[in-house]
């Protein structure tokens, strides 16, 4: 069934969109990532104009994250206090990110830089997680399946001032690192058109030392607000949010997210991490190949002066 999207001004198959939404939704529920880093390139691929894809994706992430976070609230795996601290950074970062984005746009190389950002961050994050979780699984096997959670050593993160107690995470750390993580992820999410979960989740695990079970819910909680903010920004400045496209994606997405959350609770933390790492690496390799191999069409068309 073909459906005409009023803002994107293209006609696409409605079931294809529902399917894409569902697939990405499952992953989003499993890993606590918004799924934007998968969905945005997929939307480009089926012919949605990039500006519309990025803006609409932000709106869709709001829905799938909201659906996901409710499931986590019921299991009490959301650290609200930590979420708010991250959010302060995230909103600041998103606003900064939009400024950076517009600057890159004026240079005319925004596509390339966005892609390079993807390759670098997905590569680094995916690689690190893969190696780490592989090591954890090996260690678990040697110890006869007994996993002893290794506490992070008290490093510079713990030496900073403005300490705060995060009861749900069982942490007593300074608020500066979470705020910085929030700002950083906020900037990236505005530039790359994603929720930023794939950076946020590892940063929370490795940098802040939060327990994996709490990380997913907290990340989703924070993503809702950052992407809602981004959606409003796109809707009012670029007019590129396509609600029809968003609704189709999110109907598939929210259903998928529910299943994903169920699957996620059945897997072990290491398995979850290694799967996420593999997925991140696959997307990274795909994008890197796009940059390295000669494209079939060397020319591309673009609108003049934005929209």
């Amino acid at each position, binding site marked *: *069934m*073909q*459906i*005409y999207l*009023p*803002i994107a*001004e*293209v*006609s696409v198959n409605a079931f294809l969109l529902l399917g894409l939404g569902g697939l990405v939704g499952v992953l989003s529920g499993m890993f606590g990532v918004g799924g934007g880093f998968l969905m945005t390139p997929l939307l480009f691929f089926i012919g949605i104009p990039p500006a519309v894809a990025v803006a609409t994706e932000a*709106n*869709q992430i*709001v*829905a*799938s*994250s*909201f*659906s*996901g976070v*409710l*499931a986590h609230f*019921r299991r009490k795996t959301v650290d609200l206090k930590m979420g708010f601290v991250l959010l302060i950074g995230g909103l600041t970062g998103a606003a900064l990110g939009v400024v950076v984005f517009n600057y890159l746009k004026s240079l*005319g*190389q925004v*596509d*390339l830089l966005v892609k390079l950002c993807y390759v670098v961050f997905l590569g680094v994050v995916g690689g690190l997680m893969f190696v780490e979780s592989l090591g954890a699984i090996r260690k678990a096997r040697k110890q006869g399946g007994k996993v002893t959670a290794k506490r992070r050593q008290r490093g510079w993160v713990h030496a900073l001032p403005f300490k705060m107690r995060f009861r749900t995470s069982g942490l007593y750390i300074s608020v500066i690192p979470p705020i910085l993580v929030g700002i950083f992820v906020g900037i990236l999410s505005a530039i790359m058109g994603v929720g930023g979960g794939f950076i946020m989740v590892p940063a929370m695990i490795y940098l802040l030392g939060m327990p994996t079970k709490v990380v997913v819910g907290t990340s989703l909680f924070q993503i809702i607000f950052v992407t*809602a903010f981004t*959606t*409003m920004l*796109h*809707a*009012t400045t670029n*007019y590129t*949010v396509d*609600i*029809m496209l*968003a*609704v189709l994606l*999110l*109907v598939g997405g*929210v*259903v998928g*997210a*529910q299943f994903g959350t169920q699957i996620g609770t059945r897997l072990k933390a290491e398995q979850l991490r290694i799967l996420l790492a593999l997925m991140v690496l696959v997307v990274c390799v795909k994008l890197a190949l796009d*940059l*390295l*191999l*000669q*494209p079939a*069409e*060397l*020319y*591309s*068309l*673009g*609108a*003049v002066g934005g929209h």
Partner: protein
Amino acid sequence: MLRLLSLLLLIALPAQAADENVVLGLSQDRVAITSNFDGSDILVFGAIKRESPIPGGEPLQVIVTVSGPSEPVVVRRKERRFGIWVNIDSVLVDRAPSFYAVATSGPFSDVITNTEDLRHKVSIRRAIRSVGADMNIQGAQSFSEAVIRIRERAGLYSIRENTVAVDEQTLFRTSIDMPADLTEGAYATRIFLTRGGQVISSFQTTIDVQKVGLERFLYTLSREQPIVYGLMSLAIAIAAGWGASAAFRILRNT
């Protein structure tokens, strides 16, 4: 004397030619883009009105063109730098229609001469104009060709030779199918009558392509009330997220 006669004949010819005029019919003069819009077929038909008998010589040929609203387009070219493919240079194609279809009653080169094509901008190449091409860029021409190539592949530009049926040099009809990916606007429709490659008469009308109903409402809202539109998008997203979560829980508990 002979020279004078031929000169007279030359003057007389266009006058005589202008006696043939187009009477046009369209199956629809507006295209409504609805939610399930997946393209449209427009039947273009008409007759040639003339006071005098059908002139001898070359047979009458008909060309029908439909062109969407024209917009400037930036064409960028990639080249390999430091091992990766990067946009190196760009050319502004000053005017390129979003949709362009040409239907003719015979092979294009037989139906219209190059000079006439240039004057009336009938062929796809002529309908695109590239101004502002940086002269430092080699082969600026290849940029406008890229526009044609990319849009032809997307089914937006097409030349359909031998698709206009002409009966008794008087009646003609053709059907123009428009793809689903149409943009809004007034689509200029032109009909040319030619003999021996010369345009003897032309006629112009427009087909309005417009979004209607829900599509119209959403589009207008997004442009005129962006804040309301943005908030509505968010509200729908959150409601859907909550609804799905609640529905799933009920499903699991039963």
